[in-house]
């Protein structure tokens, strides 16, 4: 299973995935899509770590990916609980609906 992919290509893939996630984060107003975009961005960062770890044949890149995975799981569970709460209060998923404080 010896392959020789140039490391730059792995990093470019990570950059493209991150940029797509960023574009989605900026262009969507629906909270579900915003969370999906954040997942894409975290995944892109993980690709960069795994590529760098495999470049030097060290396990550290994969370990950082495991930490990213745990962070993403924690983030998504909290964010989805907040989203359900938000939807019950505002009956919409528009992120702009949360821009005002009801003091």
């Amino acid at each position: 299973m010896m392959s020789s992919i140039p490391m730059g290509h792995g990093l470019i893939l990570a950059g493209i995935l991150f940029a797509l996630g960023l574009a989605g984060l900026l262009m969507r107003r629906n909270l579900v899509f915003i969370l999906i975009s954040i997942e894409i961005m975290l995944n892109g960062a993980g690709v960069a770590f795994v590529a760098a770890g495999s470049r030097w044949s060290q396990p550290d890149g994969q370990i950082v990916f495991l930490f990213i995975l745990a962070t993403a799981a924690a983030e998504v569970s909290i964010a989805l609980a907040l989203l359900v709460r938000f939807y019950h209060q505002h009956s919409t998923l528009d992120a702009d609906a949360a821009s005002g404080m009801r003091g």
Partner: protein
Amino acid sequence: MTSLMEAAFYVAAVVAIVSTMLAITRLVAVHALLYLIVSLLAVAVDFYTMGAPLVAALEVIVYAGAIVVLFVFVVMMLNLGAQARDRERQWLSGKIWIGAAILSAILLAEVIYLIVRAGNVGSISGVVGPKQVAIALYGPYLIGVELVSMLLLGALVGASHLGRPAPKKTEAR
């Protein structure tokens, strides 16, 4: 064999990019989630071809298995209909997305330029198996494992706190 793995990397990379593009532009949340699953599976193939089999398996099990299923359950709970799709079409129409796309494209172009300008920085050719990862994870990174367990406990407590039935509206408001 070598060229086959390289070809698998590039094909999976193209699949990942295309399915991610489709995922961020869909109008219905479930369609976006299905494209997200395709993207994550393609990235898992990329991990395998980059010599990280453990992470490839975890990508399928945790990302495509657990996290996306969480999304699907929430989307099912919210029960969005055709009305939500029409509103989504209205939100995405016109030049709303062009600014975001141009800014992201500029940043991506800069990143790619810097990576290409660095020239040849070696190739990904080693395979790091699960055994090496496990030895390092429970050796020098043990404190990280403990911190992650606390983070997940915090997420559990937070999600269960936020997921309670909504309190009764008080008349004072």
